[in-house]
């Protein structure tokens, strides 16, 4: 039995366009099924109950709307305020749902491909042809999702495709002849972490296992052992993170999975935590604090790559063709690395002699390696 519906939109007013979109979706859907309950319509179309009842009432109350044309010449609604059940009759051509446009198809194709990439089990570079799980006997969810993605690919074209085309593509999937590389226009890599590591971290989250990890803190250039209670494995902006309670810091931390050098189960989690709504700020820590430093650099033409590569607060084109940027610095070691990488491509704008010396000190340290 369906659970009681809760609409995502129930906390806000819908615009007229949003309500119209829902109405156009629900009318043929209800008609195709012979009828539906208010509860089900509310849940299926994210249509807050109060607004749904008002809109249905308004539709029925208005009889003469157009000169010789009214909604009832197209759609007939059998419902009264207070009823729980709605019946709709539509002309045959309206019974199918509205077509997805190419933007909608592309978005769904993107999430579908991302989910399929989660299901590759090997740790080697994935072969896109076998990555897709197209053959019969494959996992039902993957196979069903694959079929849906092929249909989305056809919708991207935004042209009308007949039954024959649909059958042709479905047959190719069922025979395992589908080539994801040339037949699908979107591919997604959620992050560059070892799949075995990801799977083991996810298992630790699911089974509430405590881990001891060896972690490379890139910003400080320090490797440390930490005991953590894993909470969530999550991809953000193309990188995998482990959100975990760190017993060393006595706080939640986000660890880049590709910087976890080693990990092992070291116990059971006793205080189980959850993150209901991971957000970019929670994961990347981009919020400024009192301890953070803001550094200004002026980049010459060769150094402009840094403005794309690192997160920056501000940028300003100078009259001489150089680019001034401001960056948030949480670790001086991180800044030292950036300054040596940029070398003569960046001028440091600073009154702080410690910043001025950073580049020289770091360069000297690395130079020792070559003596």
């Amino acid at each position: 039995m369906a659970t009681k519906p809760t609409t995502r939109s129930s906390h806000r007013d819908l615009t007229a366009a949003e309500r119209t979109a829902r109405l156009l979706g629900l009318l043929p859907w209800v008609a195709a099924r012979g009828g539906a309950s208010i509860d089900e319509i509310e849940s299926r179309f994210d249509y807050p109950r109060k607004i749904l009842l008002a809109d249905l009432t308004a539709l029925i109350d208005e009889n003469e709307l157009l000169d010789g044309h009214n909604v009832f010449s197209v759609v007939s609604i059998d419902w009264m305020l207070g009823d729980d059940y709605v019946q709709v009759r539509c002309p045959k051509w309206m019974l199918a749902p509205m077509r997805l446009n190419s933007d909608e198809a592309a978005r769904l194709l993107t999430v579908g491909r991302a989910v399929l990439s989660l299901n590759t089990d090997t740790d080697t570079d994935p072969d896109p042809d076998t990555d897709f799980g197209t053959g019969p006997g494959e996992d039902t969810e993957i196979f069903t999702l694959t079929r849906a993605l092929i249909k989305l690919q056809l919708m991207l074209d935004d042209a009308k495709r007949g039954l024959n085309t649909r059958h042709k593509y479905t047959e190719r999937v069922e025979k395992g002849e589908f080539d994801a590389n040339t037949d699908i226009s979107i591919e997604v890599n959620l992050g560059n972490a070892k799949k075995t590591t990801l799977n083991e971290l996810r298992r630790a989250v699911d089974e509430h296992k405590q881990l001891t990890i060896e972690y490379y803190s890139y910003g400080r250039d320090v490797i440390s052992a930490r005991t953590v209670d894993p909470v969530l494995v999550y991809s953000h902006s193309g990188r995998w993170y482990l959100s975990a309670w760190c017993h060393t810091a006595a706080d939640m931390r986000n660890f880049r999975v590709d910087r976890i050098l080693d990990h092992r189960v070291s116990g059971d989690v006793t205080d189980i935590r959850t993150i209901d709504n991971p957000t970019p700020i929670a994961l990347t820590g981009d919020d400024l604090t009192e301890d953070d430093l803001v550094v200004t650099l002026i980049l010459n033409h060769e150094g402009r790559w840094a403005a794309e590569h690192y997160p920056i607060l501000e940028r300003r084109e100078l009259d001489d063709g150089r680019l001034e940027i401001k960056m948030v610095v949480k670790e001086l070691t991180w800044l030292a690395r950036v300054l040596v990488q940029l070398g003569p491509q960046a001028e440091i704008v600073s009154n702080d002699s410690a910043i001025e010396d950073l580049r020289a000190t770091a360069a000297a340290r690395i130079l020792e390696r070559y003596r």
Partner: protein
Amino acid sequence: MNRHQQKQQRLVNLITLLLRSRRPLTAAELRAKLTDDAYSEDKSEEAFRRTFERDKKDLLAIGIPLTVTKWDFGNPAIDHYGIEDSVYAERDISFTAEELAALHLATRQVRLPGVEEPFLKTGIPSEDEIEKVVPDSGQAGLGTVGELPFDRTVSKLAAAAAKGKCVEFHYQRPDQKSSYVRTVEPWRMSFDKGHWYLVGWDRVRSAERLFRVDRIKIRVDRIQESIREIDRATHPVGKGPDLRSMKPWHYGPTKSVEVKILVDATLASWASHNSGVEGTPQPDGSVILTLSVNNPDALRGFVISMFDHVEILEPSELRDDMIAWLKALV
């Protein structure tokens, strides 16, 4: 009826009128046929036009394929509005309940802006339908696991790839002082290392190329698509580079050079994973990585990122370049 309901009513009636009309209609004809305060003759022409423009935008936002044709029976040519016959999916591709359930489950696992709206056209699958596809899907294991950025440029280019249409756009790399027009046969869109890329064939350079979408310096609606489709028999979709295995030092115009670097034991596994190369382990736990390098500047950046945990062994020219770079900063 409040004004929101009135507007909604007007949108539904506009759609009904356009769908049922035998021919496209002008704005004046729509105004005459619709009984709505906002379109009444009491309102000025300017006020009507403003409302009509907003209504058109809303119809497009809902996903109604509004068409505009200029007919010049009189002089000047007047816009006539219609809705494509294919607005509904009858006899077209449509999803089974299981496929919708699988797609909806995917949208729960990976977040993307604007990805929930398509289900307003098809109905959001119920938990029972989702359970049929993935038993126990309601449990914690299938919550959100990731999010991606997305914008209309990506969907426009992906659609062009699906349609087999060549595209033209302005593109500027950070090392270029201005943008250049590129003409590309798009093969696919690829999300890797946090960025969207267009992979395709550059017609002018006659070579496969990658373009970062955030470097495309033109409004998405100005990206030109060619009218004629690409002949796939003579211009097949290529595989293109495997972005997952590409590293910054692979992108460059110079001939590939074999470079050996020695990484300390502390960072051996990290360097090996991030370079995509297994390397030759040494007795002390360090590792020698052999890399193919087309871009020495990018390789220098990678080596410096590991501070004094790594050194370039050979070729001697690159080792000397690194020493000179560092000495200039000391």
